[in-house]
């Protein structure tokens, strides 16, 4: 009796698997979605680092007495607005308002939107990192005749980056997961691809698999972070 139910359950499972992933090569939809998600996260991450580095340097320079009040006000406003509004609203505005009549790829729009968003968070992470480096480090460099820029680049920033590495990786993990709303501007990322299959099969399988894929990527990124931290800690242990 139990054997009959078991075999029925298994054959149902195999049937579902076939309809969700094999029929019409639907696994390819997921692969394409995964590729889009990874590209979008990578581009957005790079844009975010660039924006974040510039914004944090503006704020640090301003605090150390440089006469860049206008730039600093802009940086503060940027960070306040971006962190004070939902990323969902931001991506909708960028797609349906700013790029409303400009024909560009959805990958570009999504990467830009998430990069602009991430930049505000990265700026705060970098700023905290730069402030975490003891002021004596820069003073020693300056006392040897190095310029502000040289002491920043050779002494302060390398230590700041090391200090903020865990926070940066967390930001990228968050970014990867946030990109799952890109479907709202009709960009077929991993989540959207999985949901597209679900609307055809009414099965739980595609979304469960999507969740599993995100989880595996996040676990992989965490693993990389641990290894990096161990390598960078060599200057603490010697």
């Amino acid at each position, binding site marked *: 009796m139990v054997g009959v139910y078991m075999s029925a359950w298994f054959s149902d499972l195999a049937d579902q698997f076939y309809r969700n992933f094999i029929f019409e090569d639907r696994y390819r939809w997921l692969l394409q979605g995964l590729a889009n998600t990874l590209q979008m996260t990578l581009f957005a991450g790079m844009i975010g680092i660039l924006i974040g580095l510039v914004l944090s340097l503006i704020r640090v320079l301003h605090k150390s007495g440089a006469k860049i009040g206008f730039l600093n006000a802009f940086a503060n406003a940027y960070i306040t607005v971006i962190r004070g509004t939902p990323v969902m609203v931001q991506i909708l505005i960028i797609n349906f308002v700013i790029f409303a009549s400009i024909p560009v790829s959805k990958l570009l729009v999504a990467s830009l939107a998430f990069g602009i968003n991430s930049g505000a968070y990265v700026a705060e992470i970098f700023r905290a990192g730069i402030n975490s480096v*003891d002021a*004596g*480090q820069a*003073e*020693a*460099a*300056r*006392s*040897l*005749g*190095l*310029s502000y820029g*040289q002491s920043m680049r*050779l*002494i302060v920033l*390398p*230590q700041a980056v*090391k200090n903020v590495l865990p926070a940066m990786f967390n930001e990228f993990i968050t970014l990867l997961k946030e990109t799952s709303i890109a479907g709202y501007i009709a960009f077929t990322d991993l989540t959207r691809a999985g949901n597209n299959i679900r609307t055809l099969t009414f099965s739980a399988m595609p979304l469960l698999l999507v969740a599993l894929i995100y989880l595996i990527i996040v676990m992989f990124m965490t693993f990389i972070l641990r290894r990096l931290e161990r390598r960078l800690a*060599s*200057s*603490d*242990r*010697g």
Partner: protein
Amino acid sequence: MIEVNGLTKHYGDLVVLEDVSFTVEKGETISIIGPSGSGKSTLLRCINRLETPTAGEIKINGEVVTEKNVNRLRRSMGMVFQHFNLFNNLKVIDNITLAPLTLKMMGKAEAEKNAMALLERVGLAEKRDVYPSTLSGGQKQRVAIARALAMGPDIMLFDEPTSALDPEMVGEVLDVMRQLSDAGMTMLVVSHEMGFAKAAANRMFFMDDKKILEEGEPSVLLTNPKEERTKLFLQSVRR
């Protein structure tokens, strides 16, 4: 070699230095003592412009220190800090070669040879490839001295170089400073190591109330101070 004229430093409403003037000749070792908050460190930091003076002027080898020429003039003034401030992200050898290489004063081979000679001099040649975090306080300070010397300075500024050290490590740092002084380096030393001052300093400044209250030969100033406040201070540090 160093001329300080009317040096004044305010932090907002707080006056730290008021109209300080003095000159230091080539090869002199000056010991600066005084109660905490009397402006000793600020004085040193104004000389190499880590602090911007509120008023007054400082001349190094006849040249007035300004915001424009300070990076060049700092090359001729080494500074040693209370908390060492070795570059945590660089190995010992790279701590020493960083500035000569970055400022293109030497090629890599020459800079490393120079650094090794300096490490020999402070007795730490075997530490060339370790990171600062593995060194003891005394070793860190000796590397910091070597790092400052790598630029070939004419002047060395010491800002409480032994105050953060465990007692048994003070001697090794003072020995290096003593050698430097004997070799004719021009030195300004903020420190309460009276033994060092007596043995190595040509002159001693007692600072209090935002200025140099009394100056003289260390043996005279330490045993027979003129000012009441100098007497009180010396009694309190000897207790």
